[in-house]
């Protein structure tokens, strides 16, 4: 391999970091010594950690953000190839079991500077306001310790940072300002969804999506190449790697790539001292006044559990016993059908249209919660996985059906999943390449999830039929996204972190990622993760002003 292999040799060091917007480019980076006590060490640079790194450094705190993943320059490092782009995913071993075992890796876990957003599908939706108080207002789940109006402002901040392209008027929920950029042209796959909705008389709209419909600075607009979840080599996709992190660097944060945090260390008083991390072949220790864990819903609890020590024998911040519990995913069943028309769903971002009808309608449901559904556009390897997995095809029947690729269209839900204490992340005996115990994940759907899935599959089948589809079939098991495992709440007995994102047990240990979610909502999570990160940054700033950080 060449010398500049970002998977082997760190790029962000010696006072510079890669310029993600220029081939071979660099930007200056402030660097801190390991024994310098920085204000914040942030573990993970994805939707949560990347956003927080930016906000905290812009507020004047000294920040070192560590990520085990490589620091890519999308323009030069991303091939138009699903197989090659596995390099973006978390492919270190994890064990995944339970009745409805989750697919991890490509399906929901990234390992790059920029986190899972590097390969996310860019769908950026706000929570329905009532979901922040679903227990009080809708009678299921638990309440978030935050008010939706406060989140509404932070959503806006994120939408502007990502320059979302979205409809002029969003058909559901309370009014919101116009999206910064205009919606994209719909591809045929998105029009299938539209047709179905029009026939069934429900609203639909073009998806608010984090890819540019017009130029922005050095970033090009979308070229509709459709490789989004294999990474966007155009830089049209707006995510942590090309929005929050460049801002963070400019504001003086240091980002360390290929840096795996193995343990957060407590001092004798039960306060965090810093983190042990592995980089360039050796274990190092970075001192810090505060540590924020933002490794996503599996790695965050894993790190806390792996950091068990005499002061915290069950793992850090785990006096409630809830670290690693209430793991959630989204129900993500797809329904697929064949059309006489050529659809060619490999073109353009996969989910250009959607309906949130069943998120905002409470009548006619035999289940709690809601779901959105969106148009689809899987590429060949992913599609073959669906065909061999859920459709159970192989041999001649597989090849023949794969030949109908350009005539397929599909609809897929993002369905609210009920949090269950029995869905967990624990430690396995097996060790990873750093000698750290790997995660053992257990997941099963609740009865309510199953009812929601049945309802959704039924409805989408009708919608596809109405749009002219035939030979329709539905996926049995499929999930997306990860949430929970360090839930936020008002009560130290029933939650891991307080409403500020601070762990109840350790005053200078914070969590800022998808693992905070007490409930999952029926929309993709990253907009909410980023909005929450902005909110936590503001809380930290306010607390610091009162000398409480």
């Amino acid at each position, binding site marked *: 391999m060449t010398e500049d292999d970002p998977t082997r040799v760190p790029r962000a060091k010696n006072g510079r970091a890669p310029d993600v917007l220029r081939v071979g480019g660099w930007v200056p980076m402030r660097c801190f010594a390991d024994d310098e006590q920085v204000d914040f060490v942030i573990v993970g640079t994805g939707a949560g950690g990347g956003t927080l790194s930016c906000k905290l450094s812009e507020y004047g705190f000294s920040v070192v953000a560590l990520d085990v993943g490589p620091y890519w320059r999308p323009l030069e490092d991303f091939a138009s190839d699903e197989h090659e782009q596995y390099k973006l995913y978390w492919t270190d071993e994890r064990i995944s079991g339970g009745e409805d075992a989750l697919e991890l890796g490509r399906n929901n876990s990234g390992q790059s500077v920029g986190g899972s957003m590097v390969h996310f599908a860019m769908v950026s939706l706000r929570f329905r306001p009532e979901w922040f108080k679903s227990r009080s207002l809708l009678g299921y789940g638990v309440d978030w310790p935050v008010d939706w109006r406060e989140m509404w402002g932070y959503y806006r901040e994120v939408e502007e940072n990502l320059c979302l392209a979205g409809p002029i008027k969003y058909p559901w929920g309370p009014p919101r300002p116009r999206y910064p950029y205009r919606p994209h*042209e719909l591809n045929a796959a998105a*029009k299938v969804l*539209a047709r179905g909705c029009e026939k069934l008389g429900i609203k639909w709209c073009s998806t608010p999506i984090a890819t540019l419909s017009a130029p922005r600075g050095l970033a090009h607009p979308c070229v509709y190449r459709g490789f989004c979840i294999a990474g966007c080599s155009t830089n049209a996709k707006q995510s942590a790697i090309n929005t929050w992190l460049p801002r963070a660097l400019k504001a003086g944060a240091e980002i360390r790539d290929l840096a795996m945090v193995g343990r957060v260390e407590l001092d004798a008083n039960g306060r965090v001292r810093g983190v042990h991390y592995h980089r360039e072949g050796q274990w190092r220790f970075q001192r810090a006044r505060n540590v924020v864990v933002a490794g996503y819903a599996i790695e965050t609890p894993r790190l806390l559990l792996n950091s068990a020590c005499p002061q915290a024998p069950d793992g850090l911040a785990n006096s409630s016993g809830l670290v690693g519990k209430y793991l959630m995913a989204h129900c993500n069943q797809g329904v697929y059908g064949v059309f006489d028309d050529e659809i060619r769903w490999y073109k353009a971002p996969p989910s250009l249209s959607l309906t949130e009808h069943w998120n905002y309608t409470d009548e006619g449901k035999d289940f709690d919660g809601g779901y959105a559904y969106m148009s689809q556009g899987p590429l060949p390897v992913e599609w073959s996985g669906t065909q061999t997995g859920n459709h159970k095809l192989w041999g001649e029947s597989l090849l023949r059906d794969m030949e109908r690729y350009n005539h397929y269209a599909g609809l897929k839900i993002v369905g609210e999943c009920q949090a269950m204490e029995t869905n967990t992340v624990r430690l396995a005996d097996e060790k990873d390449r750093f000698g750290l115990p790997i995660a053992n994940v257990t997941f099963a759907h609740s009865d309510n999830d199953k009812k929601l899935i049945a309802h959704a599959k039924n409805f989408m089948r009708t919608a596809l039929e109405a749009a002219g589809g035939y030979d329709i079939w539905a996926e049995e098991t499929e999930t997306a996204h990860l949430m929970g495992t360090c839930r936020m709440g008002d009560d130290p007995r029933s939650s891991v972190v307080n409403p500020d994102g601070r762990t109840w047990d350790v005053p200078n240990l914070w969590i800022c990622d998808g693992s905070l979610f007490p409930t999952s909502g029926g929309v993709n999570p990253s907009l909410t993760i980023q909005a929450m990160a902005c909110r936590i940054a503001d809380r930290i700033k306010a607390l610091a002003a009162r000398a409480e950080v």
Partner: protein
Amino acid sequence: MRTRARPADRLRALQDALAGNARSPALLRSEPPVGAQESADVARLLNAGCAILASSVLADSSMEHYRGSFENKAMFVPPIVSTLALIASLHGASDRSARAERRRDAIYALSAAAAAAGFGFHLYNVGKRDGGFCWENFFYAAPIGAPWALLLSGTLGVAAERVRDTRPGGIPHIFGMAAGRLLAGLTSAGLLGTVGEVWLLHFRGAFQDPFMYLPVTLPPVGAGLLASAALSSKPKKRPLTRFWMKLVTVLGLAGMGFHIYGVHRNMGGWRNWSQNVLNGPPIPAPPSFTGLGLAGLAALRLLEGPKNE
């Protein structure tokens, strides 16, 4: 010295004109007579404007309809008609004679008619899509404003022939109306319509570059100046309006430059021309303003009277 026409007179004159009364006195009286050479010159200027409009339409409609895979036979019409209009206009621009030319006239009338039909087609295309007359369809279905430039090329062309037909020493008129006023009004409306189309497309592009505001701010001012010239009865010099028309003329060319740059700054730049020329900013569109700027200048010449007066 002329007396200022009272609004009521002007209205009556307009009604007369619309009723086909060729000798509508109030309107005609307010414009200076021109010599044979002058009317031919003004007509040639108009033809030049039409030529630019027609070539803009030719390039733009060929590109856009190629993008639409010429799905419908009717999609060949605008490139063909605008080619004819371009030929007619070039012919007119180099023709010093003071007589209208029947074939040019017919071609211009044909392009105006084709453009009117084009509006219908485009409107139908927007409406039939899922979602109907919504923003998304106005952005991405057949562009409503696109036939506008062809319509302008056609009508301005017909007007040019009428102006050319002016008797030496007579007052140029078009179907009974004073030609200067009518052209100023037409150009003003043409500018506003074009601005509407540009606004829609630049709004689609989220006005991501501040320069994108220029074509939706400068031309409306010009349109206003021209409109006020059309409504005023005094054949006086209008340096500001003249300046503004020149500005609009240059703006069209500058816009083309910006769009060429815009194609370059899309993914892959000019190497990826086969995508970026179609998906990037339309290079041939902005010169419509140049065509209209020239038409505005022609109108001013009629309104202001001969240069050396």
